[in-house]
């Protein structure tokens, strides 16, 4: 009997977990279930496991169990207090060499991307970046199901499905918000296995002298429930005032398509899409956005999409739940009024 391990890197900084960790535990569980039958037939065990590095972060390991991990490997060491490439990749390399996971998922965050390439190289395996779809599937010539990792290629105009036939683990990085987070189950049971780090402070080879916290507005659109995005159809930077007004009325944040960011109408932090953020709010409003593929991949998982565009053939309408054909400068003010009226009526 062998154990087929589906691994998730649990990303945390100073005790704050990046929610992508839970999202990945969710997909890992789905992937594990896709091989359940095949494993049962072969008498193999299938498990979802988390890998957690840090200092004094045991509580996170416990939470991970609630989000679906059967087991968490915990490497707790002062050297790991702040994320640094060397000790983290070396620590993970050691655990992975020991347990030989089959699949290894890492969030495509700045931290995750820094780490994933290093781990893949040190383990000599393949890594597919920024996957938007994951599935365990049959591949001709393979004795077991393999990870089919689908990602945008060539500027997002084409989706490529990548497999890693012979090398293990099969690694993928996945952007936050591509997959939904699973529900937390306080009753879940699992095991925490402590591992020790074999890297000293000198071996870390980097010393963080200072943290500088940005003063500018760092909107966090990824995890907002409501996003109102404006596109080139706004006609100019001033249009974002109206977008902001609607976002405020709805209690949401402002998003944008890329051309507006490129033109300097709004900062990059607001960009939704392939080269910006992936979002899945409850409500997404796209105003004056044509709906290019690269924009759609960033928002099509939203629960409810409203598109406002004066071109009835705009491709954004293909993904919208409600498409309003009209001039955004007429529709949005009316919408703001309507929302305010309804709010008042409720109060």
């Amino acid at each position, binding site marked *: 009997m062998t154990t087929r391990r589906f691994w998730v890197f649990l990303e945390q*900084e100073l005790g704050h977990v990046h929610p992508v960790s839970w999202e990945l535990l969710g997909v890992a569980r789905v992937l594990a279930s896709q091989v359940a039958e095949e494993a049962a037939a072969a008498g193999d065990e299938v498990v979802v496991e988390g890998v957690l590095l840090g200092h004094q972060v045991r509580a996170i390991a416990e939470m991970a169990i609630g989000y679906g991990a059967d087991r968490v490997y915990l490497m707790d060491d002062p050297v790991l207090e702040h994320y640094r*490439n*060397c000790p983290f*990749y070396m620590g993970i390399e050691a655990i992975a060499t020991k347990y030989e996971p089959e699949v290894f998922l890492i969030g495509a965050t*700045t931290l995750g991307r*820094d*780490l*994933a*390439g290093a781990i*893949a*190289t040190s383990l000599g395996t*393949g*890594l*597919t970046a920024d996957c938007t779809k994951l599935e365990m599937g049959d*591949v001709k010539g393979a004795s077991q199901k393999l990870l089919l990792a689908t990602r945008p290629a*060539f*500027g997002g*105009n*084409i*989706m*490529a*499905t*990548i*497999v*890693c*036939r012979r090398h293990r683990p099969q690694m993928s990085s996945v952007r936050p918000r591509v997959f939904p987070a699973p529900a937390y189950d306080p009753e879940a049971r699992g095991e925490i296995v402590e591992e020790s780090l074999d890297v000293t402070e000198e071996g870390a*080879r*980097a*010393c*963080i002298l*200072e943290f*500088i*916290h940005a003063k500018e507005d760092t909107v966090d659109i990824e995890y907002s429930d*409501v996003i109102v995005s404006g596109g080139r159809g706004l006609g100019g930077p001033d249009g974002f005032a109206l977008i902001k007004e609607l976002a405020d*009325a*709805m*209690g949401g944040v402002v998003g944008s398509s890329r051309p507006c960011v490129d033109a300097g109408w709004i900062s990059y932090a607001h960009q939704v899409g*392939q080269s910006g953020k992936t979002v899945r709010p*409850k*409500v997404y409003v796209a105003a004056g956005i044509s709906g290019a593929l690269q924009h759609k991949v960033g928002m*099509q998982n939203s*629960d*409810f999409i*409203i598109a406002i565009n004066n071109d*009835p053939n705009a491709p954004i*309408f*293909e993904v*919208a739940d*409600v*498409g*309003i*054909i*009209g*001039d955004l400068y*007429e529709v949005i003010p*009316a919408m703001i009024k309507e*929302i305010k009226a*309804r*709010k008042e009526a*409720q109060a």
Partner: protein
Amino acid sequence: MFHALVAIKQVPDTTNIRIDPVTGNLVREGVPAIMNPYDAHALAAAVEWKRKLNGRVTVVSMGPNSFITTIREAIELGADRGILVSDRKFAGADTLATSYVLAEVIRAIHEQDPLDLIFFGKQAIDGDTAQVGPGVAVRLDMPIVTYAVAIRAVDLDDATVVVERKTERWTEVVETPLPALLTCEKDIAEIPFAPLPDLIRSLRYEPEVWTMDGPITFDTEMIGVRGSPTIVYQMGTPPLPEPGEKISAREEGIEAALAFTFKKAQEAGVLQTMIGGAQ
């Protein structure tokens, strides 16, 4: 003397990529090839420090012969030496195989003429993977600082560099021993408008071309398709989701359009969210 190396890649200007509406194939014709923008900024930073510390900059690129134009562009921007690593056998490399070849080349250059800093772009805009830089650092067993936005100090005597790197949450100021590898954001340096003599020198420059035949040897198991664990299994255009319903504010009036929108929102259970209230 300061010696920096920059890994540069030629990429199609993806802002210009089109899809053939009928066949669904990529139209690569007429899509201009450019130096990966992040690499160009990294190069600008390397050249800035070469001028400050009176040193040299070597650029390396792996790819087909057409990449020579990109190497020339690097010379225009102030690089002193350009090496194109090019062989049919390298074709089909994924990031693992690419990092192997680049690491071997960089190692060889380092042995000839020791390197202090190695610059990579944050990522190549054609694949957006951001894997090659960290991969090369691991292979060379060198410290790496990713997402570098500024180089505060390079101390050749102490063999240290102080770099600012930007993460999602904050900016870290990191000190690391030399030689080190940086992957750079665009903020790292502005790309200068090169003086005419540099442009002319670049137009006449013939890069060194390194192949499987030399000057260094590569392990054939580690390169090209053979050295690449990942393969493209399928390509396709993304499926179209079910379109929702449209209503014309022009024909039916804004009132009607909004009423329809709010009704749909209610059906979808997001009406409360929409009007800014709690669920």
